[in-house]
């Protein structure tokens, strides 16, 4: 049999909110390499959850909308409680992440015995965010470095590989968008080995229209400071 390697000991966690138009494709693409996908439907208004389930994902549903951080934690807790997964992959629902990057990051973690692999847009020059977004992200990187002491090049990337022992240390309390630096902080405290891995973020017209409004960055930065 000459098929591609399947990651049997890995579960992909996708926080999902109102992505009915793209989630089927995202899940289907993932399942070509990752057979185990759990989607946390954060009380979507559309039928995102049903679409994801039809595409082959396990769906866990929040009764009320809590935010991406809360959805991620629910997914992580679900995997730890219900499976014996060795690795978790956090993956965005909007099609900005590439399955091949996730797969390469899991391989990277296995080969170098790492507990965490953070995806980074800025390790190479492939990804081209706009200037204003670059400025905001640089600010977030600086702030993350101040708060956690960890020298990351991309502080706000949703693509991560987290080994089970590191995942048990997570207790994300920032429900909304300030969770990214909280994850970095909590994983950093474990002192487990970690690395960054270059990823390509696909800024499609669709994801651009859904992406963080820049004004919302004000909220994120304030949340990060107030914690």
């Amino acid at each position, binding site marked *: 049999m000459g098929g591609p390697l399947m990651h049997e000991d890995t579960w992909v966690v996708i926080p999902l909110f109102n992505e009915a138009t793209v989630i089927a494709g995202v899940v289907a693409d993932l399942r070509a390499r990752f057979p*185990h996908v759990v989607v946390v439907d954060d009380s979507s208004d559309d039928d995102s959850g049903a679409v994801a389930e039809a595409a*082959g994902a396990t769906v866990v549903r929040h*009764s*009320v909308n809590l935010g991406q951080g809360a959805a991620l934690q629910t997914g992580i807790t679900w995997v730890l409680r219900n499976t014996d997964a060795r690795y978790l992959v956090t993956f965005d629902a909007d099609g900005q992440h590439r399955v091949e990057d996730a797969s390469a990051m899991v391989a990277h973690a296995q080969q170098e015995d790492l507990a965490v692999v953070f995806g980074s847009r800025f390790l190479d020059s492939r990804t081209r965010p706009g200037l204003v977004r670059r400025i905001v992200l640089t600010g977030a990187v600086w702030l993350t470095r101040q708060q956690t002491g960890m020298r990351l090049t991309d502080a706000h990337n949703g693509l991560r590989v987290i080994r089970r022992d590191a995942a048990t240390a997570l207790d994300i309390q920032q429900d909304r968008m300030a969770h990214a630096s909280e994850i970095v902080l909590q994983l950093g405290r474990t002192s487990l080995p970690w690395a960054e891995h270059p990823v390509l973020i696909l800024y499609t017209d669709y994801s651009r229209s859904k992406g963080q409004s820049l004004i919302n960055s004000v909220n994120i930065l304030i949340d990060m400071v107030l914690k």
Partner: protein
Amino acid sequence: MLDQPLIKILLLVAVAGVIALLTRSTSGSNHQAVRRLGLIAFGVVAVVAVLFPATLTTIAEWVGVGRGADLLLYGLTVVFFGFVASSYRRSRRLERHITLLTRELALRSSTPTASPSTSEKAPERD
């Protein structure tokens, strides 16, 4: 900056006190009792100020404020900000409870066993 020293000291002490109280963890009933005493004290002062406005003016002059009404306003402002801050903390606690409940509900409502590891999963849908 150094005129009206007495009222300024009193207000700064009150503000510091409010901040100190709020940065400590709310230990339930103790905190509630202190808050209630504070509210009662404020109520008493307000009633006295209404019934005996001259008293308030006298006190005001002791601490270096021009009018009794101004003194009341300063006190009210400090209390108000204290209320805003404690209200915010209460909201955060409630949000946390909602999150934990929603999560537990979601986890218990989901299928207890993992999906089969084969990629052939075609649920019947009509």
